[in-house]
């Protein structure tokens, strides 16, 4: 083995220009793969983070019929006595060691009308304190203040505090201190026309929130929508989101232990569909794309190795007549190709990672592209660098190079010694 390795290394140096070409080709491909992978991983992480904290949680406890109609957010299908559900789950230490946060949410789509302007909007009622870790709107306040959790009175009229997204405020010409009314259909199928007071305007950088969302306290939401204390969702965040499907199954099993909770379902973020479901499918396409890019780059190795085999036919003949076996010839040429590909892979991965570092720190601003889109994606996307991706890309480059070297190597191995020596 060692003599063959020494031979391979020496052969690579015989035509440095050609070897460099092979290394460059593989290196460029791997650099592209690493940069693309960094972007895709960063995008997925960004969308997943925003989707889970703003929408699906890692796990949601919901009523079955609500889940079937989740896109319309029906208010009739509720989790009743949510505080008892939460207390029941928190009584199990095996659950609490995996969970970082449990909170209640109510979501209701509305058509907001103000000063002759119309806007389709989403109202979210949530725990004012706990949502500081999820929606994080307290940090995004640009005018006014965050919710205090109090109901205000003005001329004997009840005003419930809300904060609204900046773009929504601009569309509706809403300012801090303005109040507006909504016509809501409650869980009782009755009509209710509560008044809301804008106490703050937020800007998160996420179009989905800034354009469409207004946020109010969970108690206010329960009251205006007449839910009798019920909520549509109990959101659970985990220490490790990867465990969500397993923990969701455990939660659902536990809920079935109590008859009064048996009507509930625990749904993990992957099963929720929507953007996250789309991403899961896209990931498999991207993995294929990485392989294709690497293959294209490594294709040059096949060409170069073929040239080498044809050039060194006499040498191959001599080596065979000296007693080198077929598999040793195969191994020798494959090794040469693999070494070229390996050097190119390492170089490409290093250069790609160096490009990714500033992109991971500062990101790129996609706000002009995302202007009119409602993706759960920050306007500034940061690349993601992971040891797993780096090692995986390197391994991909080396494997593909080895595979692409096989064809010419087999050709060399199959040559008859006499024919090879005669070909001058």
């Amino acid at each position: 083995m060692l003599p063959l390795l020494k031979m391979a290394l020496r052969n690579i140096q015989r035509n440095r220009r050609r070897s460099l070409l092979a290394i460059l080709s593989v290196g460029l491909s791997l650099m592209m793969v690493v940069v693309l992978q960094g972007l895709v991983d960063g995008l997925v992480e960004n969308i997943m983070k925003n989707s889970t904290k703003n929408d699906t949680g890692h796990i949601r406890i919901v009523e079955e019929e609500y889940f079937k109609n989740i896109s319309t957010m029906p208010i009739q299908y509720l989790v009743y006595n949510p505080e008892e559900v939460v207390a029941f789950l928190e009584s199990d230490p095996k659950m609490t060691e995996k969970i970082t946060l449990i909170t209640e949410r109510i979501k209701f789509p509305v058509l907001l009308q103000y000063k002759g302007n119309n806007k389709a909007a989403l109202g979210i009622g949530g725990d004012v304190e706990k949502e500081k870790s999820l929606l994080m709107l307290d940090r995004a306040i640009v005018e006014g203040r965050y919710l205090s959790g109090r109901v205000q009175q003005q001329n004997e009229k009840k005003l419930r505090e809300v904060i609204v997204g900046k773009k929504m405020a601009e569309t509706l010409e809403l300012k801090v201190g303005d109040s507006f009314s909504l016509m809501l259909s409650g869980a009782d199928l009755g009509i209710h026309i509560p008044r809301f007071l804008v106490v703050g305007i937020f800007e998160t950088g996420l179009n989905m929130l800034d354009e469409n969302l207004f946020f109010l306290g969970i108690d206010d939401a329960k009251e205006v929508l007449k839910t009798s204390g019920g909520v549509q969702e109990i959101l659970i965040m985990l220490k490790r989101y990867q465990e969500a499907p397993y923990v969701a199954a455990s939660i659902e099993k536990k809920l079935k232990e109590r008859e009064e909770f048996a009507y509930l379902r625990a749904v993990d973020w992957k099963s929720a569909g929507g953007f996250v479901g789309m991403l899961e499918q896209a990931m498999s396409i991207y993995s294929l794309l990485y392989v294709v890019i690497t293959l294209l780059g490594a294709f040059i190795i096949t060409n170069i190795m073929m040239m080498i085999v044809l050039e060194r036919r006499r040498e191959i003949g001599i080596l065979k007549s000296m007693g080198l076996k077929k598999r040793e010839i195969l191994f020798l040429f494959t090794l040469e190709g693999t070494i070229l590909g390996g050097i190119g892979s390492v170089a490409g991965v290093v250069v790609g990672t160096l490009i990714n570092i500033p992109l991971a720190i500062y990101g790129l601003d996609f706000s002009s592209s995302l202007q009119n889109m409602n993706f759960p994606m920050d306007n500034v996307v940061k690349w993601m660098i992971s040891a797993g991706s780096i090692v995986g890309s390197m391994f991909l480059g080396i494997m593909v190079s080895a595979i692409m070297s096989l064809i010419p190597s087999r050709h060399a191995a199959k040559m008859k010694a006499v024919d090879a020596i005669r070909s001058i």
Partner: protein
Amino acid sequence: MMKEKMGICLLFFSSLFFSLTGEEILRKVDSNLNFTTAVLTMRMEIYLPNQPVRVKRLKSWTEGSARSYVEFLNKEDKHTRYLKLGKQMWVYDAEENNTFLISGHLLKQGMMGSDISYEDALEADEIYEKYTIKLDQEETYEGRACYVVILTAKVKEVSYYQRKMWVDKEYFVPLREERYASSGKLLKVLESGDLKFFDGKAYATRSVVSDKLKAGTKTVVIIEDASFDVPLQKDIFTRRYLER
């Protein structure tokens, strides 16, 4: 032979002359419902999938087709009142002391979560201006001989591009109506029955409305009591009365 031929021609031409057009049939339907005022007490049953039936009791005061005032009699909705004036509809919430003008896309919402939308209530009196009306054929529906009348929109500002009505030939009461989008998709079905007579005029006291865009829902409206051409309080159709 000649006399027979002339008789047949006379019969044919006279049948053309005396048979009703689609519009005439609908005008007869309208005249059947012709009253200056009406006070109705109704029960509305709202059916949703996997939910208990929600029952709402309401009372309406109506003057012609342009003015209407509605209050709810069941405890849960006592705070809600509606006022319709022409093409505008207001809703008042006594708990919040707040009035709201229902407009734009909100009109497409179902009233109180039912399959009857606000625009269904507002568009009822505009069919002659907005639709061409044609008698399609005659058919039997639920054992009753009916005219089948088809209304096709002639303006863009309609909720339903096409409407197909089965009108009872004897009493000129619509027994069934199907409402379609311009794509041909069936949007709503209305079925009426339980005819009762008031001053010699037939009135369907039970209606079932199903929104075909929603699975497993329907709304049943039953008229429990009806009085026609009775004097009404003068200020009942005012915002002041609504918000009292």
